[in-house]
């Protein structure tokens, strides 16, 4: 039998240095473009990073920030499809998901976990009414620092409604493939694991609501932190 131990994954710590994860909050800004990949007159680029997707009226489908060229200008991976004059753009970082692990899993999950496929490969993901394979999308909040620690939480807390299943832990993972893979099963593609969390026992919901209460957002307790 396997186990679930609360830990940030070791592989993710190297991946942060390799720019494999972007956990910024969603940002809105205004900017202008004229049927090109150049965007100018941005109201602010604070909180915007290369690789974040963005959308808005006349923004090309699948646009990603390719380069930040000044404090108020950037280029896109895709040209705008029409004139944009001070249009509102919405920038989104990597979609992180939280997937639930069954009680008494076959696999062992903790600091050595590297990918969401670790769970699915062992058939250890929860299945049941109200649970969608792959888990729930988390709402990113911008990382902050306190003392010598950087940390981030997600808000609101994830919740499953009309749910019938049992679970004993979860994994937070990144669905975006930002690099070519770094180690172990963490090869090309998304699914890299950021953290594994034990619920200290089996939690069962029957035709009800199950909400995960994440640790408080402090430098010593936040769900993801680097010191």
């Amino acid at each position: 039998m396997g186990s679930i131990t609360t830990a940030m994954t070791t592989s993710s710590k190297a991946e942060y240095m390799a720019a494999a994860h972007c956990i910024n909050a969603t940002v809105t800004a205004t900017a202008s473009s004229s049927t090109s990949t150049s965007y100018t007159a941005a109201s602010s680029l604070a909180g915007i990073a290369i690789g974040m997707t963005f959308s808005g009226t006349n923004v090309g489908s699948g646009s990603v920030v390719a380069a930040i060229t000044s404090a108020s200008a950037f280029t896109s991976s895709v040209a705008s499809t029409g004139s944009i004059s001070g249009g509102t753009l919405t920038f989104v970082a990597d979609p992180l998901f939280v997937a639930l692990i069954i009680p008494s899993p076959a696999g062992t999950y903790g600091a050595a976990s590297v990918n969401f496929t670790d769970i699915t490969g062992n058939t250890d993901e929860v299945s049941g009414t109200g649970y969608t394979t792959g888990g729930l999308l988390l709402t990113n909040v911008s990382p902050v620092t306190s003392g010598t620690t950087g940390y981030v939480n997600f808000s609101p807390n994830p919740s499953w409604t009309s749910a019938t299943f049992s679970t004993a832990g979860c994994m937070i993972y990144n669905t975006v493939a930002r690099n070519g893979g770094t180690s172990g099963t963490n090869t090309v593609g998304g699914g890299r694991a950021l953290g594994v969390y034990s619920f200290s026992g089996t939690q069962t919901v029957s035709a009800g609501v199950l909400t995960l209460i994440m640790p408080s957002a402090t430098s010593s307790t936040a769900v993801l932190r680097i010191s």
Partner: protein
Amino acid sequence: MTSVLISETNTNHPPESYALATAGQLVPSDGYNPQGISPLRIRELQVKVALILTPYFASIIGRQRQSLEADPHDLRLASNVVEMADTAAGKLQTLSRNSFWHAVTMSDEWLNTAIGIIGTHLMTAVHVENLVHADNHPDVPEAKAYKTKYQGS
């Protein structure tokens, strides 16, 4: 995860549950405790904190529910969460006067952290209310889109 809330019916968690979960994070029983406060006193304080917070959760859930009943298509936040969290944190500072907790709660850092913790849980209460609303109104496009966004189906 600190804890898991479970409702046995497909309704929002009761305000008291949110309040107790929040109190557990504001006054952690396994956290920094340089004064050697006994677990019993910490538990008593958690209960007092939860009693103060419960009306805020009841209020925000009630307002969101009323708002959704008035317009099932509008799942936007019906309350000012930051203002509510700020007020609640101020109440907790008042509660802490003449107690062992006072030295902690008077710092700006604690206040900011407390507002963040309370705010996250208030947002969660609204989020769950919206999800339950979506379950009960599968024919409302906005509600269906909300559920799809957060739960995938």
